[in-house]
């Protein structure tokens, strides 16, 4: 947590932490997204602790939006079309999982579920290196090319969620290292973020397993500085 608080105090953009009256705390970090239609930068917030109520509300919004898009206009049914984030929350182990979200215009533009129990890194099997595992990540349907083609609204949502997960990895002693299984449509995105592809994982439906090393996490943070 020390590193996270330090970044929040000394970050380039305005970062702030807010403590609730309860012992749990909510961290809000100011970030920037890109309006894909106009190209302008828009201030948004990265929330490091998304609540069950917020997830339930977002699930309703995203499901409603998905169902409003005529299936015949889609070139293919998006890979995450049947996901249910509230079910993911209810199936998660409380205290060992964290949900991150990016809020803009009062709505969550993307969510990420992070497993807080460090796992052994595949980058160096014989060391004590560990990674934090991204259980799930999804951007809102209106930000996905699969639903919107060239009319997707906000860019940078996936990148900012990964940057938030890197901060959590640092806070949990994993030095910014992350692991995840990419769905096929997003593989190019993670490779552009310097994730290393370990190929199809037979134990996870053949999804590619990717890892971001601590050194590449540092480079990614520098490269994403605007």
């Amino acid at each position, binding site marked *: 947590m020390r590193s996270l608080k330090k970044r929040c105090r000394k970050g380039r953009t305005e970062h702030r932490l807010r403590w609730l009256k309860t012992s749990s705390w909510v961290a809000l970090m100011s970030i920037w997204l890109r309006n894909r239609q106009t190209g302008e930068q828009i201030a948004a917030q990265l929330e490091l602790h998304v609540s069950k109520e917020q997830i339930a509300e977002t699930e309703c919004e995203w499901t409603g939006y998905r169902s409003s898009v005529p299936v015949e206009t889609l070139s293919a049914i998006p*890979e995450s079309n049947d996901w249910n984030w509230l*079910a993911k929350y209810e199936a998660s182990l409380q205290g060992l999982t964290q949900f991150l979200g990016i809020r803009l215009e009062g709505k969550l533009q993307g969510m990420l579920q992070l497993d807080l129990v460090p796992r052994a890194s595949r980058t160096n099997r014989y060391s004590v290196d560990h990674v934090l595992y991204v259980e*799930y*990540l*999804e951007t809102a349907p209106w930000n*996905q090319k*699969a639903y919107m083609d060239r009319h997707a609204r906000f860019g*940078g949502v996936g990148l900012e969620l990964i940057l938030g997960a890197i901060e959590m990895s640092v806070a949990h002693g994993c030095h910014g290292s992350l692991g*995840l*299984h990419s769905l096929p449509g997003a593989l190019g995105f993670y490779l552009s973020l310097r994730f290393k592809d370990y190929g199809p994982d037979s134990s996870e439906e053949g999804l590619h397993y990717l890892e971001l090393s601590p050194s590449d996490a540092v480079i990614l943070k520098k490269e994403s500085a605007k």
Partner: protein
Amino acid sequence: MKNSNIPLSRYEQMLRAEEECDSITAGRRAKFYSPAFRAAMEALKPVHKTEAEPLREPLVSK
């Protein structure tokens, strides 16, 4: 007028990659929960009784 020969910054490259991907997703179970998993989740949900039940048989004085 923009010069298309100017190389994109790494930040712009990452945004472009995000834009060109069909969807930005990651997950262990690729598409959706299996029916068996959903049934298991339903079974775990707490059951809320609509009517209060007496804790014991009412005492009957003889």
